[in-house]
């Protein structure tokens, strides 16, 4: 692979590009699903190719190909240079990047059990058994399960001399029970909705989930939701479960701190951000107990945003985003770091595949644990609603106003869960919401959740991001708006 990389960089230099970086990537994926006791999807895929990014005449060009011959790669490199020169016809200013060392390294994400070595029969048998457990419950009209495994090798080389090989193994799994009754559809998922939990781990993730124990629980809840009370509409106290809080972090902290959005580079599609440059180190983003980091290091955990180097060859870092409630940092790359006067990229350039340009993406954007025991938190809540497992999510294009709904809610009165609530939802303005946080559970309840489906960029790229969170409490939140006035 290194020969192909060198070939690409040499061609680009010869054609007039003083800087270039290339990624050869080999992606392998396996997808298994079941539905109502039958196998649904059963598929495996592999894709290998090269993406070449060059800087010529002060502007960027990128081309990719799956023709991994000497001639194919050279033609692709020449095309990248030609595109960069075309970019120069409508450039605003010359691209400048902050400096970065070059690295020669090889890294593999740790895992205990290679999911591609586990017999398919065993994987399917587990999914079919979980599927059956859900269907045993009266009222369940649709049972679904899924597993997904990925193995991604990438070879990064730059004209500055970096040669970095990384291998990542990613696993994901989830189950869901749906109940249709009396003109109403209710659904419960485990361990999370929209495909379950996804981490940078091997098959040990699947084994840790204990699907067979949870399958009947969510099935019973899906059926029971029909007779639960409607979530009331009010201003009140809200406790969010960890996975829902993970998505709240993703949407209302993770996206607005992306510096490409802040600088207008995503204005036509993903949107911009309310976190304009004057807010840095000034804005009280959250209450003083809130601390958020963007941490791509393995020390943070096996998240979908964990790696050794980003796709620009910058080592994984931990960046303070919110420190004691104050807004402290952005997610940047080498180009945007220069534009706002930073000395170094925060290492957040990531690409979905060999045929996509790396762009600024979340790594693991996590809320650090607080001090509360979960039982103490509920005991301390006199009148509130606990919401768990996302059902819908939406936020405006500058990331101010959001609305989420979850699969299930629980009314808390006098420190006790007193009744199930259906169709729970809440909404708010990002900074008002985070400033209303008055309790965060401690490390024992903290989990690094995976969001495998974050879409951004044109052409669209899907990226996995990590979000550590433990349950937390928020005061004076607008509750029940999604179903108001229907």
């Amino acid at each position, binding site marked *: 692979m290194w020969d192909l990389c060198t070939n690409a960089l040499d061609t680009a230099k010869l054609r007039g590009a003083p800087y270039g970086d290339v990624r050869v990537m080999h992606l392998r994926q396996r997808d298994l699903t079941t539905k109502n006791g039958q196998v649904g*999807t059963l598929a495996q895929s592999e894709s290998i190719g090269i993406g070449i990014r060059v800087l010529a005449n002060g502007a960027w060009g990128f081309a990719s190909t799956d023709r991994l011959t000497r001639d194919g790669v050279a033609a692709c490199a020449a095309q990248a240079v030609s*595109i960069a020169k075309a*970019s120069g*016809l*409508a450039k605003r200013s010359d691209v400048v990047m902050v400096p970065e060392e070059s690295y020669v390294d090889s890294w593999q994400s740790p895992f205990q059990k290679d999911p591609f070595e586990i017999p398919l029969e065993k994987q399917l048998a587990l999914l079919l058994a979980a599927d059956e457990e859900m269907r045993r419950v009266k009222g369940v009209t649709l049972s679904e399960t899924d597993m997904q495994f990925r193995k991604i090798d990438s070879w990064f080389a730059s004209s500055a001399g970096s040669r970095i090989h990384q291998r990542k193994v990613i696993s994901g799994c989830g189950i869901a029970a749906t109940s249709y009754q009396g003109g109403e559809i209710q659904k419960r998922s485990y361990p999370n909705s929209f495909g379950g939990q996804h981490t940078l781990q091997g098959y040990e993730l699947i084994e840790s989930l204990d699907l067979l124990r949870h399958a009947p629980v969510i099935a019973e809840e899906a059926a029971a939701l029909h007779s639960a009370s409607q979530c009331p509409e009010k201003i009140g106290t809200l406790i969010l479960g960890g996975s829902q809080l993970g998505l709240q972090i993703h949407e209302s902290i993770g996206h607005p701190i992306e510096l490409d959005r802040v600088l207008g580079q995503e204005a036509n*599609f993903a949107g911009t951000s309310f976190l304009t440059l004057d807010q840095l180190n000034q804005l009280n983003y959250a209450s003083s107990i809130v601390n958020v980091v963007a941490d791509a290091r393995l020390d943070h955990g096996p998240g979908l945003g964990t790696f050794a180097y980003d796709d620009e060859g910058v080592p994984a870092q931990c960046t303070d985003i919110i420190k004691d409630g104050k807004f402290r940092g952005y997610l940047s790359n080498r180009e945007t770091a220069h534009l706002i006067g930073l000395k170094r990229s925060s290492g957040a350039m990531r690409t979905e595949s060999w045929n996509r340009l790396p762009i600024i993406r979340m790594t693991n954007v996590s809320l650090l644990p607080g001090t509360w025991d979960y039982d103490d938190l509920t005991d301390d809540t006199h009148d509130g609603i606990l919401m768990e497992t996302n059902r819908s999510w939406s936020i*405006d294009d500058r990331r101010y106003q959001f*609305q989420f709904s979850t699969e299930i809610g629980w009314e808390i009165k006098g420190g006790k869960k007193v009744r199930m609530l259906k169709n729970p939802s809440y909404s708010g303005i990002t900074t008002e919401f985070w400033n209303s946080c008055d309790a965060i559970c401690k490390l024992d309840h903290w989990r690094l959740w995976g969001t495998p489906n974050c879409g951004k960029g044109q*052409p669209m790229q899907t990226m996995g991001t990590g979000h550590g969170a433990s349950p937390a409490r928020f005061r004076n939140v607008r509750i029940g708006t999604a179903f*108001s006035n229907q």
Partner: protein
Amino acid sequence: MKSLSKTKKETSRENALGADLLSANELRRIVGTVLRLAKSTGAEETEIHVDEVANALTRFANNGIHQNVAEQGITVSIRTVVDGRTARATTNRLDEDSLRGAIGASLSLAHSQPKDPRLLPMPGKQRYGKVNRFIPQTAELSAEDRARAVRRACDLALKKGQVAAGIFSSGQSQSLIGNSRGLFAAYRETHSQFSITMQEDPAASWAKANSSDFRKFDLLKLAERASEKAHLGVNAQELTPGRFTVILEPAAVLDLVGFLFYDFAATALADKRSCLNDRMGKQLFGKNITIADDVYHPLQQGMPFDGEGIPRQRVLLVDRGIPKSLVYARGTAKASGKAPTGHGFALPNEYGEAPMNLVFGGGDSSLEKMIASTERGLLVTRLWYIREVDPYEKVMTGMTRDGLFLVEKGRVTGAARNFRFNQSLIEMLKNVELLGQAVRATGEEAFEMVVPAMKVRDFHFSEVTKF
């Protein structure tokens, strides 16, 4: 490793700055090779999908190009059947060893599962309606052509004191399906898209067009429209949320109603996850709502066959407000005693099918007439981040974006801050007062459709944001 693809044609591709697609003969050769290799493996039936793209996209922001990309790639996806079981494996390597490996992986996956009693034999040879959606002038667009066009749009923004961001993309793709029963379906198309956001702090507005023929849209006109609306949006006032009469431009209609159509899959009804369960044949929408799925419509794009190679049929989904028909893949058609409509996804899958070429019946109104007829309402340019809140009542939430304007006494009187909506699509399609001419519309939340602008009463906005 023996290389299949190292042909004269490929050498020319490698040397070209803009890649061409493989010829029909080369595609047939790939299919023939896979079928030959599969014969000796014990596969009882074999299906091959070949998909190839050569796309380019120029992206601009802050009045200049900041990203500019091109991609070329091909995938070969192989489904085998053995002893009543089926599975799929996909590769982008065309040498015989890799294709043999993909066949082996497909068989191995198939063997690992229980027998599927519902699995049908693969279909044989089919006849397809003709569509011509390959425009050489679009295929020939170069990075320089796109850069010059972007420059003109950015120059307009600079002249107006505004900031432009957007994309100009072009490309070509082809898809082929062949199987061991003699089915062979091939399709190629070109595509182009221009999208522009004009920003005049604190406002922004947007325009977008999409076609197989880039000459069908006028980039500067789109830029001018976005520019004018951005200027109009500068002094937006905050209104109290509530129920409003809205005039939805086609892109706003498209992105909302796009969430309705997976419910027209026969599989969705069988799974009881469709909003049409217990509602087929009833007056669900207003009598002015008629919707068909029609891949042959002149404003539509896409291939005239489905993921199993079955020819797409025109299907009348909603007739004067009454849901009349569903779409069926072969498997769901057999289970329901119906004929397949050519809307199935590639097997194996759990979703079955979906209509992909929606065409709404239009009306004789227009945006101008809708505005003129409105005592008080809102003109909506575009919607954003739409998600489903209630799957049966089809309540959707989302935001207005890039141009929300107050209409009073028959004219636009100013801009309004963006609203969040929580609105049932079923209720909305009962409340349509006026329809414009159906046009090819493109947004960001749903695939392209032929839809009209709509004037809708009692549209529910629940909250307001800060801009």
